[in-house]
């Protein structure tokens, strides 16, 4: 669909992630390392789960459509569980890393906290997941044609870009929630992450009824965002104070 659509979809899908990276991650070398390592962990989990799915598909009859659909659902399920397992593994690795950083530091304090690590790890997971979702679509978006000649929806690229954006955000918030659950031994937080991940991935089976996949995902994303905000130490009072503070600053004050 030409260059305009290519850049538009790239900005939609990766714009917020780019903003987050530029402002919070790229200036801190330790965070960059954790970001890239997180991306790698997600990549390994995808490789293993896709290997399992590929073997299952090759071993089965390609003509049997319900079986192939079932195998796809199984593949998605397995992949979600494997991604969360790798998130747990990464948490364990980062825990060990913090002990090492504490030992190396001068004042007995780690230069990066586990909450920051959680955020960056989640962002890393999200970036790699978004890349794998979106890159081959973007490559085909460069050509002159758009989706639709076989009857599919024309909004394919746009909805895929929005879905990628929401998945990147979700991975970031899941990272924060999951690590918090692991830190404070609250297993129900980890279970909530896994459950919502399953719901979001499962909702994509509603496609091409894009309403059925985008709206639940965005609602869940806002819910996760609020929860992560609260867990990170923010509260609504501060938010409202901040906003009011802004308002009172802008309105002229007598005598100041």
């Amino acid at each position, binding site marked *: 669909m030409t260059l305009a659509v290519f850049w538009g979809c790239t*900005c939609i899908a990766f714009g917020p992630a780019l903003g987050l990276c530029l402002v919070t991650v790229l200036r801190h070398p330790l965070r960059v390392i954790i970001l890239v390592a997180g991306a790698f962990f997600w990549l390994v989990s995808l490789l293993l789960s896709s290997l399992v799915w*590929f073997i299952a598909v090759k071993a089965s009859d390609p003509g049997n459509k319900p079986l192939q659909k079932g195998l796809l659902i199984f593949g998605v399920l397995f992949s979600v569980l494997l991604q969360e397992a790798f998130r747990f593994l990464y948490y364990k690795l980062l825990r060990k890393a913090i002990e090492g950083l504490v030992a190396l530091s001068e004042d007995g304090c780690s230069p990066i906290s586990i909450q920051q690590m959680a955020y960056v790890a989640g962002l890393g997971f999200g970036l790699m997941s978004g890349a794998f979702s979106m890159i*081959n679509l973007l490559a*085909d978006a460069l050509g002159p044609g758009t989706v639709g*000649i076989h009857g599919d929806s024309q909004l394919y690229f746009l909805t895929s870009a929005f879905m990628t954006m929401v998945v990147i955000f979700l991975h970031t918030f899941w990272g924060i929630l999951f690590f918090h659950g692991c830190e404070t031994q609250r297993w129900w937080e980890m279970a909530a992450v896994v459950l919502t991940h399953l719901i979001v991935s499962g909702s994509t089976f509603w496609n091409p009824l894009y309403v059925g996949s985008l709206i639940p995902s965005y609602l869940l994303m806002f819910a996760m965002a609020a929860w992560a905000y609260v867990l990170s130490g*923010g509260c609504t009072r501060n938010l409202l104070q901040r906003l009011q503070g802004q308002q009172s600053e802008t309105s002229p004050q007598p005598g100041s």
Partner: protein
Amino acid sequence: RKVSGGAAGLGPVVGGSLNCVSFSSGVCWANSVERKIYIPLNRTAPCVRLLNATHQVGCQSSMNGDTGVIHVVEKDQDLNWVLADGPHPPYMVLLEGELFTRELMLRLKGTSRVSGLAVAISKPSPPRGFSPGLQCPNDGFGVYDSDYGPQYAHCNWTVWNPLGNGLSYEDFHFPIFLLEDANETQVIKQCYQDHNLPRNGSGPEYPLCAMQLFAHMHAVTNTVTCMRRNSIQSTFSLSPEVVCDPLSDSNVWSTLKPINASRKMDPADEVVIVATRIDSHSFFWNVAPGAESAVSSFVAHLAAAEALHKVPDALTLPRNIMFTFFQGETFDYIGSSRMVYDMERNKFPVRLENIHSFLELSQVALRNSSALWVHTDPVSGRNESVRPQVRALVETLLNSSLGVNVTLQEVSQSQPLPPSSFQRFLRARPIPGAVLADHRAAFQNRYYQSVYDTAENILMRYPEGLSPEETLDYVTDTAQSLAEVATVVARALYQLAGGTGNTSAIQADPRTVSRMLYGFLIKTNNSWFQSIIKQDLKGLLGDEPPQHYIAVSYPVNTTQLVQFVLANLTGTVVNFTKEECLNPERAPGADKEMYDYTWVQGSREPNSTSRVPFCVQSTVHLTKALSPAFELKEWGSTEYSTWTESRWKDIRARIFLVASKELEIITLVVGIAILVLSLLATYFINAKAHVLFSSPGDVAY
């Protein structure tokens, strides 16, 4: 010609391979997203660029293909939408074969609202005839010019191809493809009807169905330019990028009495040459069925050769007979000009002085009420030394038709020769000769050098329900008629070569003619062809009708098949082993200088899958058919053919939907807005993080 390799766009390759489920060595076709967007058109033939000394002809597309909104033109009024009314130019026109005329093409050529053309082959063939060749084929390269018979030059006396509209020799700046498969044409029309028709009075709405044609040609201007660029590339570059190739292949020739091919013929020996052409052309690349223009003549020629070899006193005739099959005659006589050039420079065993007479078979399949016309050259007919020999030749021909259902008649002696290889020989030396054709003045062939010159054009009809084996052997009326022509030719040749016996026993075999017609016009992959070719040439035979275009890489299938058929029909089986046959110097009794030995795979044994191969001894030879202009490096020559074919990388076609510009711009604007918004939001949140995230009792940053 396709150039392999080269750098494709990196993005699509990287992205496209990610989703490809293929770890094996199989070709990774398209990923699932590409399959959602594009429908490739597989059964198409492009129009490519050909160049000669002064011009470029054919079609050209942009480097990354030409895209346009499809519009189906089924009648003349539909064209107004494309040329003036349509709101979404440029258009890609899907044309019915009937409307593919010169005046429509000139209208399309003059506008910038057309980005390409797809022609749907019309079944049945257009009833008024269609010929994209010239009205005066090979003008300027025959014998008639301002010095020799000026009143006959440039078809001033007779227009040979009155239906010729010259489209093959026009230069188009947009790609033109032929849609050979009616199913694909239907898919395109369905897409057009679903998306491109105007609704409720207003114009058609996006998304619209569009087509993209890739046919970028590397060569430009003319042969001189592209050969000069080739030589610069070859001299200075480590990996030269050749832009064009000369059209070349091989001529096939054989003699009735074996001669030593490496030594020159004795000046006292005389040879009667019988010649036909074996190639044709059409507007589209590698589509050249050439039934009437080439196949009919060389099949009759092959049948005459077989009949002559069966004559008992063939080897004791006073003069030899040389059966010559010229390749490339469609493109200003490439094969015959090369042979004459070789003869003049003593590079060919036969010299021009050895030629006693010349007989050529032109188009012979569409005889009107069994009439076959004898054409002679009027200018050399006035030459006192040549005239009696020409008269004797014509007398012999007329006598040979007694008892056969062929009425030989001579055309008016002031009429010039039709376009024929004989004209190139006359350019070098006045030789007595004649050209046999089924037309008196203008061609009977209404589809000369077009895609419609197929088996149906020469009225080959088979009854329903025959198996392929039965069809191979079924003698059609066309086969019978060509066998009669071959009989006449064989008897005439026997007498011209000095034979004095009774000629009524010389008969061409209609069954052989029908097998050859089937093999060269309908399907090359039949049992007879399979039994006469060499073992390692399986790729030679296919299931589609064969095309007889000269191409640039040799030898082409047609030349090889003519060689094998000629060897089978005129050669003898010798009792050599495979080792001896492939290395004749070790075989006892083999004469490598006089004969050619071929190990053919033979026919299948009944109730078995193995074949019984054997060795064939024949006098069949190949000589190079490359225009002398390329040997002499005179690329701007007006004396010899200078035709070259451009090279290209990628030729394909596909259809898809295009979205409106508004939707694309909206996507871009939304994307940029989200990017800017998120950058700003992140910056502000980060700046105020200490305020937003400071809550007592929890870990702060």
